[in-house]
């Protein structure tokens, strides 16, 4: 056990894990956290707490993660390199672990030009791979980055990373995942999948490199509906994830696009379970928590396991 988190134990036992995304409120409203926590509580094993997602200022992921612990949920604290230098990163990791946070996902973060503070200075003192290495150094060597200065206490964290199999250059994606695993990533959450063929092609490259045996891969799932398709394909949003035309047609032509979106996710989960090296799913999407429970239920993944 690297951190002894619930997520780590579920994965260690070879169970199909489920994480779900939680976006902290744009303020300090604890009741808003509670409302979402209630929706997620019984349908996921751990909750990803985003770190100022899309570079929009939100309650800090450290604080929101801590609140979730008080509410009986297990957080996966996301940490980006966009807003913190290595001093702030290591300080926040000390604080987060002191508050009982046991999972961290290391990422670069959306560029600040997409957010609501576009004139800010982006930091990127470290990149996501260097951040993974930093967390592992703190955990396994018990020192700060640089390997010299000892840390008081133990930083026990289950280290996560992300990958977008759909971004270019495609050929680089599995290679980059390999770097993340070598840097110390214990688990990976992928960007949400709509193009299953491309995802399988990426997984094949991951398998060729043997990475599916060195880390746990949770495949990204995010329900579509008509509005989200319009948003995703619109000019002003991130074009990170292509949606195949067939899928767009299936959703938009359906009598109930929201329900159809849920059905698609359930089918995707069944398909993903058959892929070697997929250890679980990661449910994503802004304010879609109510749909998460229905997807998990529809996929026959309830109740979630209690692991000692």
């Amino acid at each position, binding site marked *: 056990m690297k951190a002894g988190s619930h997520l780590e134990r579920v994965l260690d036992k070879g169970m199909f894990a489920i994480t779900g995304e939680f976006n902290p409120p744009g303020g300090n409203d604890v009741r808003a956290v509670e409302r979402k926590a209630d929706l997620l509580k019984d349908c996921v094993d751990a909750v990803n707490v985003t770190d100022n997602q899309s570079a929009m200022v939100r309650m800090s992921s450290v604080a929101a993660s801590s609140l979730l612990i008080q509410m009986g949920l297990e957080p996966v604290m996301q940490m980006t390199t966009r807003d913190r230098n290595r001093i702030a990163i290591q300080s926040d990791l000390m604080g987060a672990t002191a508050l009982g946070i046991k999972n961290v996902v290391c990422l*670069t973060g959306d560029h600040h030009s997409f957010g609501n503070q576009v004139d800010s200075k982006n930091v990127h003192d470290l990149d*996501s*791979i*260097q951040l993974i290495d930093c967390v592992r150094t703190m955990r396994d060597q018990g020192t700060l980055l640089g390997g010299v200065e000892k840390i008081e206490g133990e930083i026990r964290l289950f280290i996560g990373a992300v990958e*977008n199999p759909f*971004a270019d250059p495609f*050929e*680089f994606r599995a290679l980059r995942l390999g770097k993340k695993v070598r840097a110390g990533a214990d688990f990976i959450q992928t*960007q949400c999948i709509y193009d299953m063929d491309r995802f399988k092609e990426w997984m094949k490259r991951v398998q060729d490199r043997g990475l599916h045996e060195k880390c746990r891969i949770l495949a990204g799932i995010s329900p579509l509906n008509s509005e989200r398709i319009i948003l995703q394909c619109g000019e002003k949003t*991130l074009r990170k994830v292509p949606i195949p035309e067939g899928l767009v047609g299936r959703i938009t032509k359906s009598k109930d696009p929201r329900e159809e979106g849920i059905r698609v996710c359930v089918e995707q989960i069944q398909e993903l379970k058959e892929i070697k090296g997929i250890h679980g799913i990661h449910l994503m999407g802004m304010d879609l928590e109510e749909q998460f429970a229905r997807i998990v239920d529809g996929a026959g993944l309830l109740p979630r396991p209690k692991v000692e």
Partner: protein
Amino acid sequence: MIKAEQKPMEEILRYLDPYNKILLSGCGACVTVCHAGGEKEVGLLASGLRMARQKMGKRIQILEITPPRQCEPEFALEMSQTLEKVEAVVSIACGVGVQTLVRHTPKTPVFPGVNTTFLGETITHGVWEERCQACGNCVLEQTGGICPVSRCAKQLLNGPCGGPSNGKCEINQETDCAWQLIYDRLNGLGQLYKLEEIIPAKRWGAESRDRGPRRMAREDLKV
């Protein structure tokens, strides 16, 4: 070379509001190449300022000069007599040139007439792109000769973020993804193995501007 672009006319006029006799100084080096601060631009800006001030009913006398390199002290010294004759200076050299003049003119204010933008190259006539951030420890050997520090919006050293599509940066569809360029270049060179290596955290605090302004001293060149 260093790139620059002229500041808005209104801004320069605002700087000059209290003055009636000024020196407009260009530079024969970088800013001449990017058509922002050479002899030609000195002439154009001087005419523009004169006309604008005439319209305002406040005539202005403008002396014009374009030393070969404004950032060299010898040329600043040559200008010292002229500098004494004016109430203020507008420099359309880069920010370095402005500060060289400042160092040699204790009593005359020097204003920038351009915004210094970046270290870059000419792509085609009238188009320039950033290529270097003078980070202090060049990584081009590892990245196929393409700089991720200056050309990746997140300065990522170990590969692309999750944003690029069709070889373009997600922030600006006109900007090539630096890591796509690096990948293509190393692929062409048969050196993709270079991408496998994890580049450790950069020493911004020791090598870059983050330790404060940098200074170099060469004993063999000192007089």
